[in-house]
């Protein structure tokens, strides 16, 4: 990592190259989008637990399970601000959610957190590798600004939201 996410007009072919945690994909309209790879940790939070009891259709619960937390360093580097919409996706599915900076040093750079729920489960595959348990934490995902056009590397399906 270390390169900020940006959109740039370009027409050169950068192939499949990229650094360890990011890659460049050629997309429509001759735009190059930087995709960053992260590890996503879905988990429980106190607010998720309280709003769950109030109801899964309440604004509080939906907001809690639909907000992605990032390390402040990552947000600064990617020029993201609290509330910016980001698209998080992997080979299973994708979600588009607002992001916000995690409290203090709760998250190290490269790690994302989202409250466990409907959104995080959309990035979870059906295969349990013979264990009964799908990979539900430590998921490899890509992240990009949601306002960017769809990349060629993205799953073909539309957002299931």
């Amino acid at each position: 990592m270390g390169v900020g996410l940006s959109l740039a007009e370009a027409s050169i072919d950068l192939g499949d190259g990229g650094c360890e945690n990011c890659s460049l994909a050629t997309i429509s309209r001759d735009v190059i989008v930087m995709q960053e790879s992260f590890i996503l940790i879905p988990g429980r939070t106190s607010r998720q637990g309280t709003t769950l009891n109030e109801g899964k259709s309440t604004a509080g619960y939906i907001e809690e399970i639909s907000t992605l937390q990032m390390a402040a360093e990552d947000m600064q580097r990617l020029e993201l601000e609290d509330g910016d919409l980001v698209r998080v996706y992997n080979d299973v599915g994708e979600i588009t959610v607002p992001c916000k900076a995690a409290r203090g040093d709760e998250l190290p750079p490269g790690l994302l957190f989202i409250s466990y729920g409907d959104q995080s489960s959309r990035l979870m595959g059906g295969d349990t590798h013979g264990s009964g348990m799908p990979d539900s934490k430590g998921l490899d995902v890509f992240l990009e600004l949601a306002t960017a056009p769809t990349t060629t590397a993205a799953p073909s399906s539309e957002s299931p939201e």
Partner: protein
Amino acid sequence: MSTPEPSNTAASAPTAPTAATASSSESSSELRVIEDATCTFCGCVCDDMELTVEGNRITKAKNACVLGKAWFFNHHIEDRPEALIDGEPAGYDAAMDRAAEILLSAKFPLTYGLSDSTSEAQRVAVAITDWIGGIVDTTTSVCHGPSGIAFQGVGEVTCSLGEVKNRADYVIFWGGNPAESHPRHFTKYSLMPKGEFVPRGRKDRTAVLIDVRKTKSAKAADHFLQVKPRRDFELAWALRALAHGLELDESIEETTGIKLEKLHEIMDGMKRAKFGVILFGMGVTMTRGKHLNSEAILALTRDMNQHTRWNAKPMRGHGNVTGADNVVTWSTGYPFGVHLGSGFPRFNPGEFTASDVLARGEADAALIIASDPMSNFSQPARDHLASIPSVVLDPKLTDTARTAAVAFTVSTYGINTGGTVYRMDDVPIPLRPAFESPFKSDLEILRGIESRIRKIQLADVSLDKSDETAAGVA
């Protein structure tokens, strides 16, 4: 103490039980206090609640944590029909008839959920699954199921939370965030309480938190080990090596993200402890490696007993998920993911677990009790569940209930319904319900479905015998 009897007085009205609700309100309109009530929201199952009840609402919950208060204050009587059949309001009798039909006509039915229901109801759910030759799986399979697999591999050196409270002088929380998921664990069981052999409470204990995130729980710990994501197995194995007195290569620092010097310091402390415990969460079981991660922690615990007394215990989430493990185990011999269609129990995670049989499109009907897989299973599993007839029991109108062929509105266990639940350390605890509900309990609905299934099955047997007799006479 004013404790009502468990609710068994549901109305027989086919739709919204207005009359029953009114009757219930009338009989319980005075302010009452329920002492020693049990909170069933999380696996701590705190049984020292003091609930103030006004009519059909709990207005105060003394001793409850923030999660417990949310649980008690948001489970009141909702104006809903007894049941829905294909989305249309229906009475319990018609819904139980339809549920029995669905389950009996299935070739590979799945029973799933059970972690937020009483053990009495869990027992009937297992019986139904046996009668119809299906699979019984619980939310354990997507919680500490991997730990259940690990128990079979290396065993579990364990103890009760009472022993933790009274004896533990070295406590490791691994892959969990009790400050947010089990808010009273620190104060009631593991860190703060003064115990028989730890008379100064927190001052007599050393606390370690191992996690990939520096969560709110880190503030409560003396040592925070920020392990790299998906490196729990390597960390446990490194500690095992140190427990055996083996030298470790410095590359372990790059592998785990933790300084070798720190690992030695932790191991020295673990060896000096008089009574240690590792309380591990789903950061261990939900991450790649799964049961191998749990197995490594359990093996570390076993190894530590060469030096001093050490124990391990999973931190369980739902109020009676531990009860589900116990009931399914003493009923079938296995804790979850059990196939009963061959006339004898077969256990095979990956083959007979809910996430798998749904994602692979195998189950052709489902009985779901107190769980909402439509909002937290993988998309392929959700898609298939939505495509098959399901029977759902839940106090709330969940996404799973909305897609069900038959959805029962049931009373809430622990608040309206008595019975037994198991705390996360396998200790059974009785429930003291706060007020009656016009809705039936899981137990009553499941018994109704079971009796209908048996009636049809026994009628079929009688019919077969009659046919044989007639054929013999002819």
